[in-house]
Structures are given as C-alpha cells and as structure tokens.
C-alpha cells in the first residue's frame, strides 16, 4: 500500500549521505589516516640504522598502527547522529535498522579503512618490507579493516550514550581486535619467509563473514538501548 523506498535504495541513500558528510568534514576524517602515517614514520627514526630489525617488525608496526587508527575513528560512526537527533530518526525508520547500520559502517570503512589500503604499500616500502610479503599485507588490510569497523560499531553503539565513553570503548573493543591482529601479522610474517598463508587468510575471511552477519544486529540492539 505504501510507496516507501526499497531497502536497497534506502541503503544507498544513507551510504551516500555519510560519504557526503565525511566530504564536508574532511579535516575530521583525515585525522586517522594522518595518525596512521605519522606513527609508522616515527619507527625508523626511533630504531636507528637497523634495516633488518625494521623489516622484521614491519608487519606488527603497520597492523598496530591500523588498529589504533581505527579506534581513533570509531566514535564518528554514531556520535554526531546521536548528538543532533538524527539517530532517533534512523531508529524510527520504516526500514530494518540493522541494514541501515550496515550502510553507515560501510561508509565508515570507505572513508577510514580504504585510505589505509592505499597508503600501506608506500609505508611497507619505507619500512623495507620484502616485496614477497606486500600482496599479503594488502590482502590482510582489505579483509581486516572492515572487521575493525564492524566490531567497533557495536562498541560505539553501546557507549555513545555515555558522557565519557572513550576509555570504556577501547577496553571493550581492543580485546575483540586481538584475533585480527594475530592472524594478520602472522600471515604477513609467513609470506615474508615464503610460507603458505592461506590458513590465516581463511581465518580472517571467516571473521569477516561472522562480523558482517552478526555485528549489524548487535549494533542495532545496542543503539536502541543507548537511545532510550
């Protein structure tokens, strides 16, 4: 009876809105990327002239920096919508909230995760990572960063109603990031030594599928709690 938009159209609409907001708030959204680049460039300076050591710990450096950059950007997923009342309007939408949440998380990944993927090869080269390991590095970032956004969304949804949710958010989310960190860094290590990496990649893919299918529902439920 109603002429409401199809769910797909609403999804695209919200995704485009969030991208547009990011475009108009460029400075805020460039912060995590800048942080990622700055942290990584500090390591060669701090470690001195030890190229072997640097190449050895490069996977760890890149992934820890990616993790912290993701943490830094998480709050922006729901904060402004919560503060100006847009979140209430999203919760009162005729569409399933979980799908709308997924649209917002997708936008967040496109704005904060994808840029990491683009600058990572440059940084890997700078740290002297072996060329054999670099495709695996990109693959782990491609699979891993969406997981960070999806898991982080649950944490933000739970803490967005709190005045000072920042510390709780990191305590809540970082332990859940650890498996991603372990498997991603181990995959790159193996690739650098010329070993098979499919086991770690499949594990990461499994995490991704799990978080895509479960996280939006958990996030939607947490948002309802925070908004009430």
């Amino acid at each position: 009876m109603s002429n409401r938009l199809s769910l797909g159209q609403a999804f695209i609409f919200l995704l485009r809105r969030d991208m547009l907001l990011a475009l108009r708030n460029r400075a805020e959204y460039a912060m995590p990327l800048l942080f990622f680049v700055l942290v990584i460039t500090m390591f060669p300076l701090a470690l001195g002239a030890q190229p072997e050591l640097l190449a050895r710990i490069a996977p760890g450096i890149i992934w820890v920096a990616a993790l912290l950059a993701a943490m830094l950007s998480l709050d922006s997923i729901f904060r402004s919508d919560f503060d100006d009342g847009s979140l209430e309007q999203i919760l009162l939408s005729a569409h399933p909230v979980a799908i709308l949440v997924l649209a917002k998380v997708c936008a967040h990944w496109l704005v904060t995760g994808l840029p990491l993927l683009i600058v990572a090869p440059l940084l890997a080269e700078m740290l002297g990572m072996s060329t054999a390991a670099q495709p695996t590095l990109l693959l782990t970032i491609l699979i891993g960063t969406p997981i960070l956004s999806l898991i982080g969304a649950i944490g933000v949804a739970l803490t967005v109603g709190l005045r000072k949710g920042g510390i709780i958010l990191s305590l809540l989310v970082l332990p859940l990031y650890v498996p991603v960190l372990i498997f991603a860094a181990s995959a790159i290590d193996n690739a650098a030594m010329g070993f098979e990496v499919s086991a770690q990649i499949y594990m990461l893919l499994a995490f991704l599928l799990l978080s895509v299918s479960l996280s939006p529902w958990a996030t939607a439920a947490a948002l309802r709690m925070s908004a009430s």
Partner: protein
Amino acid sequence: MSTSTLLETRDLGCIRNDRQLFEHLEFALEAGEMLVVEGPNGCGKTSLLRILTGLRLADKGDILWRGEPIDRLAGDYYEQVNYVGHHDGIKHELSCLENLRLARAMGVPSQRDLDDVLEQVNLYAYGESVVGSLSAGQKRRLALARLLATDSLLWILDEPFTSLDKASMEMFAALFEQHLQREGVIVVTSHHDISLPTLAIQRLNLGQPA
C-alpha cells in the same frame, strides 16, 4: 473499542531514576483527534512521547496501534509515525533539500514536491543552503517540514513551537488542523497555547512531578 481508534494505551506506566513518573495511563485517540499532554517540567511528558514512538520501552502496560501492540508491528508502525523531538534531527552540514530527501528515504515519501514543502514552511529561498547557517527558528521549521515531506498518520511532537515566531506558530497550527481533517492523529506537548478551531482535542495532565 470503536473501529476508528488508531492509538490506544493500556495501563501505561513509566519509572525513571527510581521515580514513578506516571502509572495507569489510559487514553484512546480516534482518527482526526489530537492529544495535548500537559504538566510541569519533569513530569514525564517527553518520556511519554518517547514511549509512544517506541524509542523507549514502557515499564508497564501496552500501546496499541489499530488494536495491535506496537512492538509486534515494528516497521509497519514506524511507517505511520513521524516524530519531532527536542533535537531537530537534521544534519547541519547538509542543505535543506538534502535533509528532506534523507527523511523521505527513511520513511514513506509523500506526494508533495519538496520545493512546495519548503515554500510552505517559508524556507524556499534556503533550499540549497547549508543548514548550519540557518537560525534556530529556521532549523525548527525544517525539522517540522519533515511532517509534510513524508506520509504518516501519527505525528508525535515534543515542544514543536520552540524558537518559532508567532507567524510560524500560526502557520503550523493551521497545518495541524489540516492533518486532523485528513484523519491523522497528533500527540503534542507544548508550553505554548495551541489554539485550533477543531473540537477534537483531548487534554492529558500528567500532574505534579513526584
């Protein structure tokens, strides 16, 4: 229950910070009726409105839409509801038109042209302007313009006239009257006097804060 009863509450109760804000609250609204919720600050007006939208769960009792509990209807109920709360719910970085288009995408778009909607709330000249540059009253008018941009029967309005000038208040009062004539239902809290020629106004006084 008559067949035209749209919104009905049964034995509704709300507790906030260990205080009973209200209990055994019952009312029924038929198509074309308006409920004005009155009472002093802190008596639970906003809580009641948020419970009616489904944003907040009632601590006790049921809310029925056409005889069915709203938590079972979910999306089918939200499609009928338009809520304008304390916060305007508009993005300051987007233009007026972009905001209204988003509101339409989230709800059920009405047949009206968005330019007409903006003209009706006297914001036509600001269609492409970024909302952040508008005044508080203009933002409020844009938030209320959502009511016209989407099609819904139930309007739930929390202090809709905040920061509006006298002419705008009269203009929106006339729009409320039109909505009631089209068999819509309105639940509203306001410290301003809402003077509509319609007779179908129920008043609910939530009384003293405990």
